[in-house]
């Protein structure tokens, strides 16, 4: 029987958690040399694009914060005969691999417990981190090469993989459309996506009538969309950061081209809807692939997590409204992955009996299983450092600024719609 240690009654609003933390700190001070004072500081670094992709970065940081609140007593955690004060440090990678590497070096210098990472720059940073026995837990990017249990024993991931997204897109799109155009941006995210799409469509490469690169920062993507149209595409698969997805949709619809647009989890980023808020109908029928938010056992665990998240941080407002005037909120999918990763990090810390032996800590993390916030098991072992399996990728379609699982995919059709309005 699986336990749910993280969704305990401690899962209270942020105010209560802060009050508890202050109380514990005050009590410790009053006791003069008590166990609280002897708690060693231990930092979890969040390495994410707080300026480049703030909705993604904030979701990751909130997920980490919430897990620390849930698993510790006001930030204090006992592991073996040691007590630790768990801190969360947020470092902006600015979507730059070089800055991401600098941040990881800072984490190494600070003897951080682990880095919870959006994924940017991991190709550059994993080696230095591995030498310092510093685990990196990716919770957004899905590039296949980023995670390799043998070559990169310190890198773990809880997020849909690019391979899973691409194959599931192939399963869903290929039977419907026979002339697809791939539009990928020139970031690492897009480049890795292009590789995954090519592999997934290797079963029939002739279906792909155009490979088009979307230059970062270019707001008018009409020339690229026009190329796809002239190539005869009857569906677009866009693998890009949110602003580029919005620009592609805008370019297609403003030409009156009602071509189906399929995309990745970035399609659900609030920025897409914010950019298209002037033409809400353009968002309709945009379909994106992402990890299933609810597990086989039903929606209750995820809804409980969502409630805890909103109690702690308030709802993540998308910044748009439905036709009825309801404010649209963003379900905490990527916060959930960061939450689960942090649960695994802290669970491994306790199993390892502390953080003194970092090499042992990484090995223990590599054999850790926790129950995720949605009830799914997140399990690492010597052959597997991935927390989301390919078959757990589902599809959702936008309508009236909110999204719901599609009905023409077996997995998606079995999933409930998550509440997204206030």
């Amino acid at each position: 029987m699986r336990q749910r240690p993280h969704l305990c009654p401690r899962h209270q609003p942020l105010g209560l958690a802060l009050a508890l933390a202050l109380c514990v700190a005050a009590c410790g001070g009053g006791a003069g040399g008590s166990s609280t004072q002897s708690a060693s500081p231990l930092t979890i670094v969040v390495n994410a694009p707080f300026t480049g992709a703030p909705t993604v970065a904030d979701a990751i940081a909130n997920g980490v914060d919430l897990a620390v609140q849930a698993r510790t007593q006001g930030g204090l955690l006992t592991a073996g005969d040691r007590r630790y004060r768990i801190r969360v440090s947020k470092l902006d990678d600015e979507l730059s691999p070089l800055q991401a590497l600098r941040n990881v070096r800072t984490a190494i210098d600070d003897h951080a417990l682990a880095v919870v990472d959006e994924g940017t720059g991991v190709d550059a940073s994993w080696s230095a981190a591995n030498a310092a026995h510093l685990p990196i837990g990716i919770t957004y990017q899905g590039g296949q090469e980023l995670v390799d249990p043998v070559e990169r024993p310190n890198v773990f991931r809880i997020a849909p993989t690019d391979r899973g997204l691409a194959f599931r897109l192939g399963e869903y799109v290929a039977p419907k459309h026979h002339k697809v155009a791939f539009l990928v941006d020139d970031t690492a995210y897009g480049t890795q996506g292009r590789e995954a799409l090519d592999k997934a469509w290797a079963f029939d490469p002739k279906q792909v009538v155009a490979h088009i690169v979307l230059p970062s920062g270019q707001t008018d993507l009409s020339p690229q969309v026009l190329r796809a149209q002239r190539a005869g595409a009857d569906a677009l698969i866009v693998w890009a950061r949110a602003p580029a997805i919005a620009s592609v949709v805008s370019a297609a619809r403003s030409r009156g081209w009602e071509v189906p647009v399929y995309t990745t989890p970035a399609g659900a980023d609030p920025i897409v809807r914010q950019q298209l808020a002037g033409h809400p109908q353009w968002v309709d029928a945009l379909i994106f692939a992402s990890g299933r938010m609810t597990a086989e056992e039903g929606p209750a665990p995820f809804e409980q997590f969502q409630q805890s998240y909103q109690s702690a941080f308030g709802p993540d407002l998308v910044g748009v409204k439905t036709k009825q005037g309801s404010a649209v909120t963003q379900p905490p999918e990527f916060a959930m992955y960061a939450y689960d990763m942090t649960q695994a990090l802290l669970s491994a810390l306790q199993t390892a009996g502390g953080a003194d032996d970092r090499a042992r800590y990484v090995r223990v993390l590599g054999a850790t299983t926790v129950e995720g916030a949605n009830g799914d098991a997140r399990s690492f072992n010597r052959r597997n450092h991935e927390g989301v399996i390919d078959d757990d990728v589902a599809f959702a379609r936008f309508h009236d600024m909110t999204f719901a699982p599609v009905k023409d995919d077996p997995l998606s059709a079995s999933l409930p719609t998550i509440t997204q309005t206030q």
Partner: protein
Amino acid sequence: MKRSIVALLLLAFALGVAGCGGGDSDSEKQAEAASKEAANEITCDGTALSGDSGLPAGFPKPSGVTYVKTRQDGPTTVVNAYYQGDLDGAFNAYKDAFDPAGYDVPFNEKEDKDAEVSYEKSGGTTGLVALKAECDNGRISVRVTSRSD
């Protein structure tokens, strides 16, 4: 005269609606059930597949498993089957079968009414065996996906 015709037409319409309503209720229920079954791809019975399943050569097929349907969804082979026995039996049968067949099992999970066994083989073949205890005939629904790079 006109009133009589209108009354008859109204009566006929009312009866028709009532009749259709009753029929639709049953058919709607059937359709809903079928849709639910299709959505979850539950397989509790069916004739054994006569041709190739589409799964890789040497893919483990534990004793008690009957393949019923196969299809190609783009790059992925999907096989629907059932297992004669209970969930524990199906779960253990698949877990035990992969290693001798040369596959790794990076992830497996068993819950009260369902279980999953993921598999991979060097060369890029991966997939999942999803087991669901939703049959009332002593069988377990089996759904196998297979993806190759």
